[in-house]
């Protein structure tokens, strides 16, 4: 399960703290630091530890949003061109043997790069 973690003010190493406290391994997919919005990180945690980890993070002052899914793919709009394939840094997109687009949403880190590269507005973020 992916969690979007936002630290509004000062940045403490909360991810390390949460790993220590809960013993759950957390995978950081992407992290961004921005002077105005504080720090934001997208992390991946095992589904069964999702509640435990997010509660602990909240108690340390972070805003946590649980993201149900990765990039959203609209099959109706998609024409299976493949323009998105070479754009994605995580190889989320590929063709099957009939040249139909396959989307492995589990690999998605929600970087958003593919969205503007799809000529058919078939890709969007759900959060």
């Amino acid at each position, binding site marked *: 399960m992916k969690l979007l973690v936002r630290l509004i003010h000062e940045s403490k190493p909360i991810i390390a703290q949460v790993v220590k406290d809960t013993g759950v391994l957390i995978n950081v997919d992407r992290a961004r630091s921005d002077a105005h919005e504080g720090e934001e990180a997208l992390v991946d945690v095992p589904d069964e530890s999702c509640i435990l980890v997010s509660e602990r993070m909240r108690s340390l002052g972070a805003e946590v949003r649980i993201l149900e899914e990765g990039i959203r793919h609209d099959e109706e709009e998609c*024409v*299976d*061109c*493949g*323009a*998105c*394939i*070479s*754009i994605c840094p995580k190889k989320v997109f*590929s*063709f099957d043997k*009939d*040249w*139909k687009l396959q989307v492995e949403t589990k690999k998605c880190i929600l970087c958003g790069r593919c969205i*503007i*590269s799809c*000529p*058919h*507005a078939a890709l969007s973020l759900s959060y």
Partner: protein
Amino acid sequence: MEKSIDEINRRIRDGSARVVTADEMPDIVSELGEEGALREVDVVTTGTFGAMCSSGAFLNFGHAEPPIKMERIWLNDVEAYGGIAAVDTYIGATNKSVTRMESYGGAHVIEDFISGKAIELRAQSSGSDCYPRRSITTELRLEDLNQAIMVNPRNAYQRYDAAVNTSEDTLYTYMGTLLPHNANVTFSGAGTLNPICNDPNLRLIGSGVPILLGGAQGMVIGEGTQHSSAGSFATLMTTADMADMNTDFLRAAIMHRYGPTLYLGVGIPLPVLDIETVRRTAVQDSDIMVSIRDYGVPSRSRPVISQVSYAELKSGTIELNNEEIKTSSLSSFRRAKMVANTLKRWVEDGQMTLCLPTRYIDTSKQAKPMRETRKVILVQEIMQRKVVTIKEGQDITEAARKLLRGETNHLPVLNEQGRLTGVITTFDIAKAVARPERKVRVQDIMTRNVITTQADEPIDIAAQKLDHHRISALPVVDAQNQCIAILHASDLGKLFKPGGGRP
């Protein structure tokens, strides 16, 4: 052995014609041999599905009461051509909506008509004795129109060069998103299924030949615009009735920062008349080569980086300078195959018979570049030669003073040799002052990655740089990277003096 077109049509009519799609031909020929394939196969169907920007439709709305001769016309706020009287127009696929520039255009009007939606028509006229009405606004559906005839000046390119970007910035082009430093390659075209690739000498494809266009039965009008058969870049002009089209084979699209375009399915059934047809339709992806061009160079003659085949491009990665690069198709091979399969069904069911061209297309033609009679305006004509600069080692308070004194908010920064190494803006200084750790020298706070222009660069390219990077000035450098002048975004305004137009 040869077969006549009549013989093939007779078989189509009695349901005994053997029809295959073009991608099946290589295997059939290697199994049965050329003679065997000629005996066995009667029709080969082709198909392509991709962005075909040069597309549009003639529409006739019927007369209003009182009648109007429409001179300016908008369909869902997309302007259509008003130069053909009185209730006729041509809507082009790439025209942008005046209200929704980034998300809607002529292609969307066409798709919306085809999917049965109502479209708002607005028109204006200067009025005349025979057409007194000055304006009209109404909502129309496709069924309300007398005619909606798609006529596409340039479709079904034989092949199309692939694109790469050696520059440092992401580019958004009609070839899709091109990542910096050769990080991806984009291409377009169906390769083995492409209609003209299966008949490169245009022996079978020409005026009057039946086709699938946007899901409708249509025909080839003749050569397309920019047709360049001699360079293996032949194109076709095509037509079909929009009322018979469907969205499986026609989709509006937006190329980010380029604009609207129309994705179209086009396919042509080819009668297998002789050995030459067999040989040509046995073409494979590995036989069709294209150049990879560098879109990082904003010129008509974009440098060729390498040559590749469609087989390599379709494999998902190609090798360039010993590196593996991911490829992206912009056209859809899956839908191209759907086009070829639909044509196959039409011919098998006897819904479409074939014919030979009533007029042949010239295969010796080569497209020319534009003849330009006015010279292109260069940066040197409007750049400011008096440029205030600063040295790397100077104090930022000195930079602040210069910025305050001058009319500029960009100070080019020079090193000891006088070469440009950075740029400093009022914003950089404000940032530096706001930060707790006091940085005092220009080189500590300057922007090092400077976007520059040259005196002999066309002004429109410099303007695009300003636009793309959202900046307001460009230092002008010479071959030694000496800063010789500066070009401000505000200087571009000089080109559009009221009344004067462009010089």
